[in-house]
């Protein structure tokens, strides 16, 4: 179990690093997917198959597809110049130092902890479901409201102004729009 864990962790680290450093957006995303998959393996080893599956279904399978979808639509490739501008040392040195400090902090923290064996206690979907619908029932319901806010917001912000389909009608509409709106 431990060996697989370390392999998966290594894959996750390497692919994440590649995802960050990759210049091609799609390749970077692919590495990110690999990273997510390896994390899913780690979840599985830790005894959370349900979360492992969700990680694949939701993150790797759905969210990343959307990312790729968007990148395809935007036809990325113009970013090089911008990236060069953003990657001037002035921009990344401070955050990197901070991140490095954080890393050292983490390492020292992990050292300070008692070494704990990876426990293979398996938690099945059923248990997850039961706890979600008893102890955390309200939490689930709140999540629903949270999503509602997201949906309503996405609807409002994503809505396009009403367009008249026919181009002749559109012109007429434009001339109308210039006149002051008396209804208000």
């Amino acid at each position: 179990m431990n060996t697989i864990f370390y392999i998966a962790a290594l894959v996750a680290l390497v692919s994440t690093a590649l995802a960050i450093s990759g210049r091609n957006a799609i390749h970077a995303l692919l590495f990110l997917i690999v990273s997510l998959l390896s994390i899913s393996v780690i979840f599985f080893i830790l005894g959370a198959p349900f979360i492992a599956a969700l990680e694949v279904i939701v993150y790797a399978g759905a969210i990343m597809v959307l990312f790729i979808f968007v990148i395809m639509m935007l036809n990325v490739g113009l970013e090089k110049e911008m990236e060069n501008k953003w990657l001037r040392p002035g921009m990344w040195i401070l955050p990197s130092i901070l991140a490095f400090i954080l890393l050292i902090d983490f390492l020292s923290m992990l050292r300070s902890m008692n070494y704990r064996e990876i426990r293979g206690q398996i938690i099945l979907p059923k248990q997850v479901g039961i706890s979600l619908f008893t102890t955390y029932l309200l939490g689930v319901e709140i999540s629903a409201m949270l999503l509602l806010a997201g949906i309503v917001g996405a609807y409002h912000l994503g809505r396009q102004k009403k367009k008249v389909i026919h181009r002749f009608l559109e012109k007429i509409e434009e001339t109308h729009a210039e006149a002051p709106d008396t209804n208000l």
Partner: protein
Amino acid sequence: MTYLLIIAGVLLIVLTIAAGLIWVERRLLALWQDRYGPNRVGPFGLLQVLADMIKIFFKEDWVPPFADKPVFVLAPGILIATILLTFAVTPFAPGFNVFDSNIAILFFLGNSSLGVYSVVLGGWASNNKYSLLGAMRASAQMLTYEVFMGLSLMGVVMMADSFNLREIVEAQRHVWFVFPQFIGFVIFLIAGIAETHRLPFDIPEAEGELVAGFHSEYSGMKFGMFFVGEYLGVTLISALITLLFFGGWLGPSFLPPIFWFFLKTGIFICFFILLRASLPRPRYDQLMGIGWKVLLPLALLNILVTGAILIYIK
């Protein structure tokens, strides 16, 4: 050792079926369209499969120079890999499976959601506008249908009280789930067709408008993998329909369980082919509309009603 044998057996069976389907589909289509189909190579044209395979294997392995090479090569592999992986948790008969998983259904859903990448990446890597359009359609379509494909199965899961396919089949000893879960079945069927982008939902490839869509640029064995992958997908969905709604290998005991399983699966495969022969292709927006506005609410309603009734009974 038996473990390896089972793996080899499953692979053999599945790949044979997929390859054989090339012939079966053409023959059946011909039958329904009142013509002959392939009937020259061997008896009933049975060796047609072999001929096609030889042709495909020996074609030049050509990658267009404008393509994103690594992704282009990777894409068809993803399709085959994800579907074959799903067969690992699919029991053909009691004891005849690679891995008796507790989360088999989730595993299937996860893999099918990863399967999207083959189409999307293949289309994108081809660097061809038709392929790209196909890829975009595929990503939207598969993402949409995946959502309630998962949801449509939840009724079954609730009734069987498990994600394990073997236990689900066992739970159908008295009544097949197709009866209590008819809505779930219909939705899963539709979503399954969409997931495998078979006709009538073959919008990502839509030969008429997109010139084969995402795999326009593919040829040789890479095309072959997409091709076989599609049949593998059909087999998989049929197998799952059988397992989830039609009692899997359960059946009168005068024949071995595995026979019943293949019989039922075969019927559904034929049904898939019949659909191809008989239905027109919907428009893209109709497809999305029906998905979000009809099937998703129906799936949710199905869960709600099933849950309520189960709670009432217990």
